[in-house]
């Protein structure tokens, strides 16, 4: 009977042993190396991206301009002109982020989003001043595709030559806001890389703070569970405003949403004011518009005083150099 065993030369046996030994050593080495890399997973360190976008004050120029007239684009032009012209704010080669309110699936007449003509004119001004890129974006509440389209802002901004960006989940970065109550939050990265930021909110009614104006517009740079912010809305507003510090704020009061804000929907809630309030002091602007259109005193808007204490501006808008004009 033939044996099943096969002849194995010494050489073959050695090679075989070496091969197994090599594989064994490799496995052991890999295991050792991996065992040294065992860490409890921790979220990546949030970046400290706080960055001012403000420009130097000029005592010869007004800090606030209140312009009334028929054409939103002309009002925008005039407001910027009164404040010293766009070249005061935008330098050649700047990356400019324009932040309108594009929060809701509403048409311009319903006054839940910023007037598209105002946004378009801001973009044109920035381009004329030689901005390298002008970006328009917002983290909408309703479906962004509908908000950007039905607000008319996407179309107007594109025609004016801006990049219109609908936020994508991949575009948020965890940032340490270094606020008193807001620390690590996901922020749309476009806000982190811009040289200049222009805030273009619309003035609307809001049940919690009475009105939603310029500082509340910064909610629209956050991702994450931002509905928690309402629980301490005044502190949140100040923390956000402290983080962003815009170059220029233009509060769109062409149509204001006087009731049932911030969503509105009913044309009966809209009041035509045909006014823009622009300026470099975000606190004074909010204080002025709240008083002018909702008759709200500073005492009923605690965030204004908190912001002033933080050095973000002054709530005593009467003391601010103001240019009021009707076209």
């Amino acid at each position, binding site marked *: 009977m033939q044996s099943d065993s096969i002849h194995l030369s010494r050489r073959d046996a050695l090679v075989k042993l070496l091969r197994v030994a090599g594989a064994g050593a490799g496995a052991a080495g890999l295991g050792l190396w991996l065992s040294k890399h065992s860490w409890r997973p921790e979220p990546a360190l949030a970046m400290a991206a706080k960055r001012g976008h403000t420009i130097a004050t000029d005592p010869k120029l007004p800090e606030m301009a209140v312009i009334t007239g028929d054409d939103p684009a002309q009002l925008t032009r005039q407001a910027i002109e009164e404040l010293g012209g766009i070249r005061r704010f935008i330098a050649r080669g700047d990356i400019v982020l324009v932040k309108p309110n594009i929060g809701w*699936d509403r*048409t311009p007449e*319903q006054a839940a989003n910023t007037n*598209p003509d105002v946004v378009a004119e801001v973009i044109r001004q920035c381009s004329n001043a030689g901005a390298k890129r002008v970006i328009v974006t917002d983290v909408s*509440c*309703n*479906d*962004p*595709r*509908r908000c*950007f*389209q*039905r*607000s*008319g802002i*996407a*179309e*107007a901004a*594109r025609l004016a030559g801006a990049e*219109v960006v*609908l936020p*994508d*989940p*991949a575009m948020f970065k965890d940032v340490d806001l270094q606020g008193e109550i807001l620390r690590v939050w996901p922020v749309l990265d476009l806000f982190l890389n811009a040289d200049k930021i222009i805030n273009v909110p619309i003035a609307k009614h*809001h*049940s*919690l703070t009475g009105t939603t104006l310029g500082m509340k517009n910064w909610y629209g740079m956050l991702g994450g*569970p931002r*509905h*928690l912010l*309402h*629980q*301490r*809305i005044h502190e949140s507003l100040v923390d956000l405003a402290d983080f962003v510090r815009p170059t220029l704020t233009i509060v769109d009061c062409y149509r204001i949403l006087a*009731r*049932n804000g*911030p*969503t*509105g*929907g*009913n044309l*009966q*809630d809209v009041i035509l004011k045909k006014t823009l309030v622009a300026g470099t002091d975000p606190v004074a602007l909010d204080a002025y518009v709240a008083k002018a259109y909702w008759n709200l005193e500073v005492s009923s808007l605690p965030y204004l005083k908190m912001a002033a204490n933080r050095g973000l501006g002054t709530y005593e808008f009467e003391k601010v150099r103001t240019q009021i004009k009707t076209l």
Partner: protein
Amino acid sequence: MRFPKPTKLRTLSQIVFFFLFLFLLLRTEFRGSLTASASEIRLPYPVSLFFQFDPLVAISNALSSHALYRGLLWSMVVLIPTMFLGRFFCGWICPLGSIHHFFSSFISERKRGKQLIDSNRYKRWQTTKYYLLIASLVAAVFGTGIVGWLDPFSLLVRSVGLSILPATNHALRASLGVLEHSRYPFVQTVSGALHFILGALLLSFKQPHFRLGIWLGLIFVFLVALNFRITRFWCRALCPLGALLGIVSRWSVLGLVKNPEHCNDCNRCLLRCQGGDDPIGGVPWHQPECHLCLNCVDECPEHGLRFQFFPGQKAVGVNLQRRKVLTGLAAGVAVVPLARSTSGFATERHERLLRPPGALDEEYFLARCIRCGECMKVCPNNALHPAFSEAGIEGLWTPVLVPRIGYCETSCVLCSQVCPTGAIWEITEREKGWSVDVARADKPIRLGTAFYDRGRCLPWAMATECIVCEEWCPTSPKAIYLQPVEMIDATGNSKQVKQPYLDPSHCVGCGACEYACPVQDRPAVYVTSVGESRSRTNQILLNRRKG
């Protein structure tokens, strides 16, 4: 000029229709436009086109609603030529058939040589589809659209649209994410370009997630995998549309002519036979099983097979057994009464059975809905999901709104645009009526009513400011109103908060409050179906309108 081989033409036709189908499915999504600000948003393509050409959907719709909904008359374009030509639709057009055809073409361990030839002979079990057809059409007479469980386009849209494409989207985004975070700028650039191209072609605007998605996907994968055992098992044994087309091809004038003098029993005609219709010599041809793929004609080395009008040879028609036909009839008769004898249909409706805006009253809805998932695919907020138990067994895979995942967008009517059968009747923004004063609107569509769980609501239970639900409430005047109250917090301090209340005259049940509620796991405000405008009985208030 040489005319291309018919089988090549057939493959070309299959590819064209498959990609047309895929294109329309991928465009069953509102993608937004940066160049138009049309305030009334509609999809630019007729994305549910294939359903309009589906005679099975048309017949079911006609039997259950005694009418043909918008566009279903087009199905005659398929039905009538089938009467003359046979099941060309299955072999040349049907995208699900083409998928099965593609996966059948792989030779597997169990399907090679003699086994392959044997597996392609006509089998008795191929008649199963006729009994399924009988059962589902009889059920349709009793007023149900359950034929959509098996209708090939319903199956395809439901499986691919709600499971395969979302999974693909997830995988592609994950891979792109890894590449885009590469440390090498070159890889970043390339993946950026790739992202742009894929974004235009394939990627969804945002990652969709569907309830039951995994099960819909597994059923589909299982049906496709069956092809490795038996060529086109689905088409041969289960597809009710194939059965319907098989029955009407009884009178077809185009047929296979077998020339017995040329046949040397090589069986090669069986190698790539799709329908299992016995093109071999010595046995009669099973006309209703044939997909007209023409592989047998192509394969025959002796040129002994050809298709011709008025073939003059005897072929076997649909050969059904009386007992099984009776079983199918009985099953079809029984299914609707049985399903509706439970309390869930009549007296104890599921509180979360929230139907899309425009949906007909439940009885009419179930009669028309073919569970195809078009509405779920198109919903921009991912709010519509296939039901598992909310609508009873009969309502399996019908659409339900899940506000915690997504609410119904105020001005959106896309689900009613794509619904192929009128289960969700086509409505306009004006008819939906949410952009005006709801209490004064003519007849706003209400999906249900919101309720507060005061034990979980922050201003009610935790003396904490919130009002996010009120902020999001899209009606004007708002359906959620606030009352300021003094509360004592845990440290004994007095504190003023605003507590939310609901005004049913303005609530439309859109679910925005539930969606936005910061109490993440079980929201403190939720919508139930009571007060839905489509139902006369599922109501709370005598008069919901003001004034």
